[in-house]
């Protein structure tokens, strides 16, 4: 428990109308103290984002049961840099400056992040002034100096069917001395699209922040809107949301387990996992009318499942459960595969703790956090499940987190599908105003959505993907590994580009 941090917010009155977690307005001095305390490990940074005339920071004070938000009102265009004391804030601050024009004072890294000089605009959500277009390739990568070092530039267009981003490797022979990422290529202006949008339209945008986590984002967005407007969705909707979230988790984990093994040249597991994944998506399509279950969770509830959905999903689980166990045994019994995954791409417990890295990245390195359990929300508040945690922090551990989570998700699904409540699946939204915040556990880690609703419309919404705190750790994971192991490391992280670039 960070006493200084806890004391700092203990006596403050939260801003009214911000639910369910408190939001406090603070001054520069308190902001700097928070940054220093976060830097000393006094809490987890959950997000940092700009608003019309404020910067918000979401955090969880170490040992506290729930997160909180602190807001600093901007009197000039500067605010004290959090990244100066707590590195996980650096990229978020660079993004806030690109989008809002707010400058983090004394920031350690002043390069643009999402703004590649291609928009013809500066600070599109702030002053919105026209700017000259720059050569998008012009970017000062950090130097890596030493005899025999050379660079390998990769991307933005990558070799596989994957999203775009640039990786700059500085290598010595086969060994990676430094990897630096440059992201932002798929920046679509999601914050601007959400601002001013009707809730129904905003929900559609939120569902497309990262397609592989469409359920998790719709879930978080719906819960944030419901918190702001004080709506409680019906029991059937709550359970169906859990069903969809776990189906999404299983489908993605199966895809990842297969793809990681494929990157280590064991295509047999890849082929089988591909079939399992296809079975899950086909069953989701029959049950919910969309393979990825996009737009099925909406503020107020869910689009109801078709008749026979529960039975169909149970049959699918019966089909994949045993063959999956066999594939897991194969993974465990193949030393040539483990030779590639064990000891590769290690991230230590200290780093995942400092960065509050969620999902398989954190849980493979001893960070025992799962939003479903630790910031419990319906239907997980009534559910029994284990959160698998490993300590090796390597590719192998990240595979095992996924394997164990698939097993837990199957058990959760069996429980819910056998006890599906009847009744309505959706309630009407009412007009109103308020602020809401929610976190859900996507397959790759916790996502955070914050909304401010004014007169039934979204005034400002912010989404923070788990990838924000995982991408930087990939740079650490690959250090001193061989270039040929990068695909393996990268796939074992499977960070989202779209979810990060927004």
């Amino acid at each position: 428990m960070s006493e200084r941090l806890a004391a700092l917010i203990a006596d403050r009155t939260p801003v009214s109308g911000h639910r369910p977690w408190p939001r406090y307005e603070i001054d520069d001095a308190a902001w700097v103290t928070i940054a220093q305390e976060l830097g000393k490990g006094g809490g987890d940074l959950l997000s940092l984002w700009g608003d019309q005339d404020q910067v918000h920071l979401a955090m969880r004070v170490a040992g506290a049961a729930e997160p909180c938000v602190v807001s600093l009102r901007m009197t000039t265009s500067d605010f004290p840099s959090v990244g100066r004391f707590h590195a996980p804030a650096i990229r978020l601050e660079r993004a806030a400056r690109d989008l809002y024009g707010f400058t983090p004072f004394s920031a350690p890294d002043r390069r643009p992040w999402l703004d590649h000089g291609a928009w013809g605009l500066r600070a599109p959500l702030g002053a919105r002034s026209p700017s000259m277009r720059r050569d998008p390739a012009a970017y000062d990568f950090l130097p890596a100096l030493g005899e025999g070092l050379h660079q390998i530039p990769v991307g933005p267009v990558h070799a596989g069917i994957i999203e775009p981003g640039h990786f700059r490797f500085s290598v010595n022979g086969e060994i990676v001395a430094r990897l630096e990422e440059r992201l932002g290529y798929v920046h679509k202006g999601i914050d601007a699209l959400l601002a001013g949008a009707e809730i129904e339209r905003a929900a559609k945008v939120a569902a497309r922040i990262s397609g592989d986590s469409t359920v998790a984002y719709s879930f978080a967005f719906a819960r944030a809107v419901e918190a702001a407007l004080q709506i409680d969705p019906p029991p059937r909707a709550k359970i169906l949301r859990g069903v969809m979230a776990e189906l999404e988790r299983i489908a993605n984990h199966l895809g990842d387990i297969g793809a990681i093994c494929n990157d280590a040249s064991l295509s047999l597991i890849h082929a089988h996992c591909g079939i399992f994944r296809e079975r899950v998506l086909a069953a989701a399509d029959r049950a919910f009318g969309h393979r990825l279950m996009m737009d099925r969770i909406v503020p107020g509830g869910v689009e109801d499942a078709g008749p026979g959905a529960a039975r169909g999903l149970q049959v699918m689980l019966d089909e994949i459960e045993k063959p999956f166990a066999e594939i897991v045994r194969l993974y465990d019994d193949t030393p040539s595969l483990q030779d590639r995954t064990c000891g590769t791409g290690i991230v230590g417990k200290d780093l995942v703790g400092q960065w509050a890295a969620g999902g398989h990245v954190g849980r493979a390195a001893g960070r025992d956090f799962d939003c479903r359990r630790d910031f419990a929300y319906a239907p997980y508040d009534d559910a029994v499940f284990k959160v698998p945690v490993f300590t090796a922090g390597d590719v192998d551990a990240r595979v095992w987190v996924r394997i164990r989570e698939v097993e837990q998700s199957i058990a959760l699904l069996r429980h819910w599908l056998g006890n599906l409540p009847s009744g309505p699946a959706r309630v009407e939204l009412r007009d109103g105003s308020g602020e809401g915040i929610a976190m859900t556990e996507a397959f790759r880690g916790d996502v955070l959505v914050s909304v401010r609703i004014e007169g039934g419309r979204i005034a400002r919404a912010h989404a923070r993907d788990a990838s924000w705190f995982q991408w930087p750790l990939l740079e650490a994971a690959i250090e001193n590994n061989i270039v040929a192991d990068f695909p393996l490391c990268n796939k074992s992280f499977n960070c989202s580009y779209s979810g990060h670039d927004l």
Partner: protein
Amino acid sequence: MRTLLLRSLFLRPVTVPAPRPDAPTPPSEDAILAELGRVLEVKARRLFGRSITIREVDAGSCNGCELEIHALNNAVYDVERFGIKFAASPRHADVLLVTGPVTHNMRTALERTYAATPDPKWVVAVGDCAAGCGVFAESYATVGSVEKVIPVDLVIKGCPPKPIDLLKGLLTLMEQATAKASP
């Protein structure tokens, strides 16, 4: 592993089977898929000899389209049996499969990828965003549909399009390309 491999030898393939040429109109999605594949194979052979090669370019998608394009390679859809495969370099590609509302940040990369693809080449815009009707159309950060940046031969709509729709789209492309190639 040996038991698994041995058993696989005796199992029926999960891949949807190809129907007989005189098969009646297929009733199920599996059968449509098989029929599509058969026609696709004939067209692809006529135009490209034995195969066509696709380079996928994500120019700003949410990655939903990528998931379904990926599925074309799994054992259920197994697009390679029709002579269609994905390449790592545009230099090896006949077809660019482009997704996303082209973002301003990806515009240059997309133009360069197109320029790096040898002629004759075809461009397929995949998904509602690439078609210009997705949720990201009106933004300071996006150019919009793919055809605003490079010439597009075919559009496959859907958010995201299912693998079956992608296969149907590739068939349509083959028909167009065949017509273009034979005067």
